[in-house]
């Protein structure tokens, strides 16, 4: 299993390199001039030159790419200066004349727009996205499997029809509509009863009291984000449960005189969960990439909104940083899911 993971990681780093090359060249083919975005409405020649130099845009495209690659690679070559040492925070490996071969944490540069380190932008926004995605998925999975099982057990009853119809509604409602409805209903019209805010973060800083955890702020966005996966999980669990329940070994189990509870949870559900895991993992990975509408409506600090804004403002380092990070998330989650399959289904073996 260990060698399997190593192999997958190596394969994943090739994927990341591919993403880097594609995004780099697509970005530079985009119309728009980052220097103009940085300079504001009034400018002059020397101001623009200074900005272009500061952003590293005064070099040829090939040089820009090599320099960026060198900055991102964990093993790279830099001029051996004190300035570089504090910029990249590297560990020297071999000194080669004036240059030095180093090992370092990938350096994602600073944002064009606000000069903030991209790594700290990612770090700040990642935690918001992570908690939101996790809460939404836990909510969707727990409720989804429960409702799915109930619907399957009471097939063709009112409850079943009700759950199936509602879940179709949940799948087809566009996320921006749901988000606005949730925000306006629970955060505005009924705010006196729910006590919820229209917008807000998990951690809120008050002017005098300082930083405080406000869990209530995650309820609306997480619920909104979870509605669609919830509906899909209900449907998946239901159909997969029905499929399993009609199989021979369930009849055998019943004939053996096992209790209904054991049959459902130990025999049926465990086997019915495989397609659900695929769905959940896929959703989790894409939710980790940020959810633009939910972030916009609830003003939630996450990756979706900043990546869209960065593209609008031609903020290359942020666009690149976000894309690389999201690619990494997909790779890691895919590896984790493969491992999870092996745990749930003994027939799956982790080999090449």
């Amino acid at each position, binding site marked *: 299993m260990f060698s399997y993971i190593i192999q997958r990681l190596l394969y994943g780093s090739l994927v990341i390199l591919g993403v880097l090359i594609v995004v780099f060249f697509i970005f530079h083919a985009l119309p728009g001039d980052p220097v103009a975005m940085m300079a504001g409405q009034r*400018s002059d020649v020397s101001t623009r030159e200074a900005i272009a130099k500061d952003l590293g845009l005064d070099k040829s495209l090939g040089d820009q790419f090599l320099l960026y690659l060198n900055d991102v690679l964990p093993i790279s070559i830099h001029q051996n200066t004190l300035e570089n040492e504090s910029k990249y925070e590297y560990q020297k490996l071999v000194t080669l004349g004036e240059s030095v071969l180093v090992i370092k944490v990938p350096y994602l540069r600073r944002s064009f727009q606000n000069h903030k380190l991209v790594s700290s932008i990612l770090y700040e926004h990642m935690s918001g996205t992570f908690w939101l995605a996790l809460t939404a998925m836990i909510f969707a999975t727990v409720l989804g499997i429960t409702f799915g099982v109930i619907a399957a057990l009471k097939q063709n009853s009112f409850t079943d029809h009700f759950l199936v119809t509602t879940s179709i509604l949940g799948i087809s409602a566009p996320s921006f509509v749901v988000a606005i409805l949730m925000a306006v209903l629970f955060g505005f019209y009924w705010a006196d009863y729910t006590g919820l805010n229209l917008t807000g973060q998990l951690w809120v800083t008050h002017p005098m009291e300082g930083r405080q955890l406000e869990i209530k702020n995650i309820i609306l966005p997480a619920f909104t984000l979870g509605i669609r996966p919830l509906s899909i999980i209900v449907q998946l669990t239901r159909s997969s449960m029905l499929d399993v329940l009609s199989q021979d070994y369930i009849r055998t189990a019943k004939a053996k005189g096992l209790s209904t509870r054991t049959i459902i949870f130990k025999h049926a559900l465990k086997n019915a969960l495989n397609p659900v895991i695929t769905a959940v993992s896929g959703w989790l990975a894409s939710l980790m990439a940020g959810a633009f509408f939910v972030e916009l409506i609830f003003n939630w600090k996450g990756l979706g909104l900043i990546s869209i804004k960065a593209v609008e403002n031609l903020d290359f380092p942020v666009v690149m940083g976000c894309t690389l990070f999201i690619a990494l998330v997909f790779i890691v989650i895919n590896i984790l899911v493969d491992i999870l399959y092996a745990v749930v289904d003994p027939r799956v073996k982790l080999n090449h």
Partner: protein
Amino acid sequence: MIETLKGFLGCLLLLVAFSCSQEEKSKHKILRYNQGDESLTSLDPAFSRSKANIRAATQLFNGLVELDNDLKVIPSIAESWNISDDGKTYSFNLKHGVKFHQNEVFANDTGREVTAEDFVYSFKRIIDSTIASPGAWIFNDKVLRNSNGKISDTCFKAKDRYVLNIYLERPFPAFLEILAMPYGFVVPEEAIKKYGKDFRVHPIGTGPFVFKHWDEGSTLIFHRNNDYWKLDEKGQQLPYLDAVQVSFINDKTLAFLTFSQGKLDFLVGIEDNSPELFLEQDGNLKEEFKNRFKYNKSPYLYTEYLGFQLDSSFSKNKEHPFHNKKVRQALNYGINREELIAYLRYNLGIIGENGIVPLALPYFAQHRTKGYNYDPQKSLRLLKEAGFEHAGDLPEIKLYTSSPYKYIAEFLQKQWSDLGVKVSLEVNQASTHREMIDKGIAPFFRASWLGDYPDAENYLSLFYSKNFTPAGPNKCHYKNAAFDALYETAIKETDYEKRNEMYSRLDQMIMDDSPVIVLFYDEIIRLTQPYVKGLQVNAMNTISLEKVDIGK
């Protein structure tokens, strides 16, 4: 399974109840506003290129001078100043005892006194190419240069601890207005040395508020500067507020809803917001809000216009109809600006029937430039004179715009098609739109100009032939020797009346030549909770919170 679910829900409910009970009204005076229309990128005044950055920096820093509500230059850290007779030497006497905010970067953790050397350092930092400040243009072509053409090392000079001299290459009477811009704010060298680029999140200035906390994209908090050097008329220490809290709600509707819930004290930048939420069609506040909020409207130093690309080297067709003045004038006469303001903009804005310089500048409100009104007959006659017997003979015109202004473009399209002129639209993202203008790809485009400083020169520089895009602001590539000559004379004239008289003539020249179609001059609208006092407004829409108070 069901049990765990119940437990989970129970925990959640408990947490909700717990966090609700914590809400307690604090006794501090806290002003809360939203910064929604654009994102705040830096608190460093050297990067204050957007309204958001200017707004925040204004609370933390001071410069030599500032602007009052009528856009007149008044003293700030400089107590008084002299301008030499040739208009090239400015000498400022600084106030004694103005201190930077208390901070660990200063010895003994106390605020250090501001001296003339600090201004020399701050100004040199603006023109330092390694800093790459977008504000370098304010000094670049104005301050003294050596014989080799490089900016002189001694153009900013501290004569003694409290006297600062600035030497200019040639007279530039609007220089004081320029110094009032946030690029001219004073910053301490110690802090820049320590934080470098991260001074953007560790700002230390002399302003009424001290930086406390910035959770980017979420909250920004300033606390009262207890040692602020300004007193009010009664001799009471400023500012009155204990803290300022800025939120960053992107969505306009949500920002308004949050405001109407009483969770914000005023709405700023609503000129870009959705006026349909709170305005009647005629521009008055909706009945339901009349007793709840204060509402005011005032002129804004902002012109919305359409530009023609006049540079023939950009067009394949050397005989482009836009190179014919009569065609440009015809299009100018062909639109009803009153309808645009009344039907599309809830009566926000002043119709653009005067020059490119907005009426918010007092001289131009008194001496109005003659622009273009709605006159379809004249429009058709001009087209005929230009050789287009029927308006439909004119080749199809393409108007380029960025997406937020599509509604204006569509209205204009309709107006011109009523005359018989064929018009199509191309809508692009802001960054693409800008590049298309800069590179001359867009022959007819929507643009706007927000005054950087209150002098007509700022607007007229849009037509000076040495300011061609992409480096300069002359988007139309307008070139007129007579204009250039008068412009060069006007910007050196130190007498206010004489200078503005020349500006006024320049403005008229532009309108006669019609390289642009002026649409309207915008207005600032503000919604405030009734208990907010002393919030003033000037035509630059800068917001100074030092004299704002909250009284329930």
